[in-house]
């Protein structure tokens, strides 16, 4: 079907509007996408079958009405006999009432069905998000994903609710008319179908273009969404660097691209109607020409030819509709393509030989672990270490050395390339991610809070926690004091991205959240970097209590924080270059010693 594979937009630039270069995007397998869309429709087949039945009935009623009027005029008005005229009118009224009722019912069922379908599609899409590996999100603009779940799914729903009924009713009408035409004259019917191949070719020609334009349109809309999202999230930096104009320019360029693609999509799809009209008129001219000739040759009666011509006029409307709807469906395919792109992404898989674990002791072992975000550029190189149950491990080292990556690997945000990570001797890839994470409490480097109340944010750590437990956790994290000083206390609703609270306060809340989770293994990644040192000290004391009986990974730059650790791992350039307790490492006078001394050297000078 893809004749225009090389030139998805039918020639360079086009002649409409200013010259513009588009990013060439095209749907590779439109029919495959359509099939997948049908698979979705199938789930609601009863709804659609019901609607089709109703459409069929209402098509018939649509013919019965005018027919009855004709009969009424013939039997009552022309002979001027009005006996039973009132009854007849009542029957006609009944038909109209029924027809309106069925029209309503049809719309109602269709509405419910399409909305359910869209609901399921959105649900599937959202659920899919949570089955995809973290890697998927690392490089994708959020705005584009949001655009798919709203704009694209909306588009599909619109096309379905507008086009499907029309499409079906056009087909019904078309079949009806063809039957009538065949009954009058088979040769004439053949003649009137002569332009059909041309119609199909033209429809195809146009919709091959519109499909790709629609797809480009939706893709660009997604990009635009991404840009808006990025620029609103980063507005602080934009303001500080006076970048408003640049960003506006960037937006305008993308917007222009969207507009140009949009114009082309609209023009191509909008031209289908008039072009079909032309074809119909051509067909009509052919019919009259042949009809006249046949009548002249007495192959056909003049009366028949008149009726036939009238039918062939009626013939055109459903064909127009069909071409139009076919074209609209292209836009649904374009959107569906973007939905299925995500739905078909490879999911995070769990191993086939899952080990069921109820509880863990908390022993963690890294065995020759290698890992890279980008192939060929390992960020963790041959890392091995062993942490016993209840020990506190501190990861220190310069930034970018791989400390956060090591922590992410324990949580299975990513899986190792080579080597093994073992918990209680079991390879963590044999433990379901969810099971594994149920033993972990993590405080991440970027504090992410949700736009609900503070209470609910802390409760995120353990959903069944009582209010008392939430407050208890907040107290341990030293968040309680500032929270109760807020006007609404624990019920203060955080604005988006936690604005309104200071970064340090947000960290305290996320610590409370991790405390509440009561995990077996605790991972603190720069958990207190924006908290003042006095508060930190208080939290540390609480943490010390908390860490008892738990295996803990602590990443911090303040070496004072790590001094009490059972084992310190010095990470440098993805490798562990030193390990041991604080005392051992100090005596060793290596990297750690230098790091430690440099931090406090100046302080000591001043103090002296």
């Amino acid at each position, binding site marked *: 079907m893809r004749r225009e594979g090389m030139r998805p937009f039918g020639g360079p630039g086009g002649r409409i509007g200013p010259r513009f270069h588009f990013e060439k995007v095209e749907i590779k397998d439109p029919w495959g996408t359509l099939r997948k869309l049908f698979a979705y429709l199938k789930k609601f087949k009863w709804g659609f079958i019901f609607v089709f039945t109703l459409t069929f009935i209402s098509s018939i009623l649509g013919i019965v009405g005018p027919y009855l*009027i004709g009969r009424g*005029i013939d039997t009552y*008005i022309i002979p001027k006999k009005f006996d039973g005229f009132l009854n007849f009118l009542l029957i006609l009224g009944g038909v109209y009432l029924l027809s*309106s009722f069925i029209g309503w019912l049809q719309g*109602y069922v269709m509405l419910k069905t399409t*909305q*359910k379908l869209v609901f399921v599609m959105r*649900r599937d899409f959202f659920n899919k998000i*949570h089955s995809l590996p*973290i890697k998927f*999100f690392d*490089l*994708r603009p*959020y705005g584009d994903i*949001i655009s798919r779940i*709203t704009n694209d799914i*909306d588009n599909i729903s619109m096309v379905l609710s507008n086009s499907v009924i029309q499409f079906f009713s056009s087909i019904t009408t078309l079949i009806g008319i063809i039957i009538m035409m065949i009954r009058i004259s088979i040769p004439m019917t053949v003649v009137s179908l002569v332009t059909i191949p041309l119609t199909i070719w033209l429809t195809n020609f146009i919709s091959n273009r519109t499909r790709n334009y629609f797809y480009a349109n939706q893709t660009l809309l997604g990009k*635009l969404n*991404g840009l*808006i*999202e990025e620029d609103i999230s*980063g*507005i602080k930096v934009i*303001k*500080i*660097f006076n*970048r408003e104009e640049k960003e*506006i320019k960037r*937006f*305008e360029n993308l*917007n222009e691209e969207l507009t140009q693609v949009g*114009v082309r999509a*609209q023009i191509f799809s*909008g*031209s289908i*109607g008039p072009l079909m009209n032309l074809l119909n008129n051509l067909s009509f001219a052919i019919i*009259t020409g042949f009809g006249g000739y046949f*009548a002249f040759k007495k192959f056909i009666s003049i009366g028949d030819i008149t009726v036939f*011509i009238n039918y062939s006029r009626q013939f055109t409307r459903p064909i127009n509709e069909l071409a139009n709807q076919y074209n609209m469906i292209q836009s649904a395919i374009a959107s569906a393509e973007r939905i299925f792109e995500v739905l078909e992404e490879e999911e995070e898989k769990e191993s086939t030989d899952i080990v069921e674990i109820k509880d863990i002791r908390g022993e963690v072992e890294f065995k020759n672990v290698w890992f890279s975000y*980008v192939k060929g550029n390992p960020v963790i190189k041959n890392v091995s270490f062993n942490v016993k149950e209840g020990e506190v491990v501190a990861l220190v080292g310069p*930034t*970018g050395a791989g400390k956060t990556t090591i922590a992410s690997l324990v949580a299975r945000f990513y899986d190792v390339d080579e080597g093994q990570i073992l918990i209680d001797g079991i390879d963590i890839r044999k433990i379901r*991610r969810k099971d594994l*994470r149920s033993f972990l409490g*993590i405080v991440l480097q970027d504090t992410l809070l*949700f736009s609900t109340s503070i209470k609910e944010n802390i409760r*995120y750590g353990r959903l069944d926690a009582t209010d008392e437990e939430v407050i208890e956790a907040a107290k341990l994290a030293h968040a309680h004091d*500032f929270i109760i000083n807020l006007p609404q206390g624990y019920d203060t609703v955080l604005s988006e991205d936690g604005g309104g609270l*200071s970064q340090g306060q947000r960290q305290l809340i996320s610590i409370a959240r991790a405390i509440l989770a009561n995990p077996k293994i605790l991972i603190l990644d720069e958990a207190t970097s924006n908290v*003042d*040192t*006095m*508060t*930190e000290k208080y939290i540390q004391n609480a943490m010390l209590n908390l860490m008892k009986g738990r295996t803990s990974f602590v990443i911090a730059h*303040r070496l004072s924080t790590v001094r009490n650790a059972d084992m310190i791992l010095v990470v440098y350039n993805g490798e562990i270059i030193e390990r041991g307790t604080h005392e051992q490492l100090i005596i060793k006078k290596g990297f750690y010693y230098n790091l430690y*001394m*440099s*931090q406090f050297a100046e302080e*000591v000078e*001043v103090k002296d």
Partner: protein
Amino acid sequence: MKKLIRYLKPYTLFAILAPLFMLIEVICDLYQPTLLAHIVDNGILKNNFQLILHTGLIMLAVAFIGVIGGVGCTVFSSLASQYFGRDLRNELFKKVQQFSFSNIDKFHTSSLITRLTNDVNQLQTLVMMSLRIMVRAPLLFVGGIIMAISLNKNLSIIFLFSIPILASIFLFIMKKSFHLFSEVQKRIDYVNNVVRENLVGIRVVRAFRREDYEKERFKYANTMLMNAVIKAIMLMIIAMPLFMLVMNLSILVVLWFGGLLVNQGNMKVGEVMAYINYMGQIMFSLMMIGNILMFVSRASVSAERVLEVLEEKIDIQNKENADKTPIRGGKVKFEHVYFSYFNKEESVLKDINFEVNSGEIIGIIGTTGSGKSTLVNLIPRLYDVTSGRILIDGRDIRDIDLKILRDAISMVPQDTILFSGTIKENICWGKEDATYEEIIESAKIAQAHEFIIRLPQGYDTVIGERGVTLSGGQKQRIAIARALIKKPKILILDDATSALDFATEQKIIHGLRGIIKNCTTFIVAQRVSTMMNADKIIVLDKGKIVGFGSHAELLKNNDFYREIYKSQIDEEVMKYA
């Protein structure tokens, strides 16, 4: 809605041409039946083959003109509506770029996204639909009524009943549906919001195994949206069959009275049939108009939402006649500065007074939530003071042109935000025309050069939307390089070294001194050691300045500072030292 029409103004020509071309198509369409009748009556019935051919050719010519009309209408209506949408989006984006944080908080990011895309799309579609059907439907409607009245005045009394009924159904539905559709748009916002939060917080969701909880939350948002859509469209679904019923019943009445008139000999049968035909035409045009009006009610919700953004009062903007003289020095003075977020909460900053000289390094230290970040955010006017004033070189910053002010200030915010693009592009944010040497120079001072050149693509490494493949510390260093390349008069490091180790941090701060002379530098930090060499240190507690002076002075005179210092100094170090 009317206020948005002005965005169509530059495309008045298109907006006029579209219906004109449509007129051509309509005329051609109306002409065709006459030609057809001619062919049948004079050609086929009279066996005049010549006439058939002749008229057939005319029909084709007319059809061809009709196509030009139809395609022309499509072209111009597409151009008008798409350009209208483009301008509206640009205008909205420009406006949002001026928004202050409280403006954004008021709308929420996700809602702003919906307004800029989804809502504009609704309006764009409305413009297109109107331009395409604007001529056709009213023409058919008015034409139909005129023909009907000229056929028979008495019968036309029926319109006096049916049209008010139809109109009131219209009005009722439009009034009701406005409210319903505004609910739909709100719930789209909400769905957007849940999705966005899940994407931004994907690691938290995974770490706390809240996938199911989030799925439930989404299910709720999704269900709410579905119900709102069903409720709104339900109204529309009732409308069409109701219109048809009213019109069909009118036809019944016409049939009844028409029959009586025929019986009295006051009307011909053919006229009754023609009358009924016209009523069918009127009904058809009414349906078209109805369809558009339905869409109008949805679009007017969107119009309102778009206007809300366009008409939002921006609370931080340039004064009229703002001073455009560049900032030469970096003398900063706070005078009785009070600040509270959203004007309702307790003051975050209370009576802040201090003065620093050009080129000084000022450390700001204090407990969590004491207002350190807030204080420095006031300097580039990310927020405006609630009362009091801030002076730079003796000028109130609210009198200085915003662009000039921010040009002189560079800042590394607490949460590192990088943009999609290469590392080089990100650093160049600070100075667009920076040379390669300048980029490397500032990256070197920010201690970023070394790790950058170790990346496979070096400075051309593309970082994702949030630069996720870089570590927190690496991102911070790029952000510092970005701030340094600007060579500002005032530099603000808002806890910008929190993810850096001590040695790196010290290297950066030492490097700073060398490169930026006469640059007033504010360093917000948790560690005393970060700012020990500062000329002055501001100690904040609960929004008030509780200490101001050099490290040595504060250590001597200030209990609060001493306490912070002690909490950080390590007895162990003393032992080894």
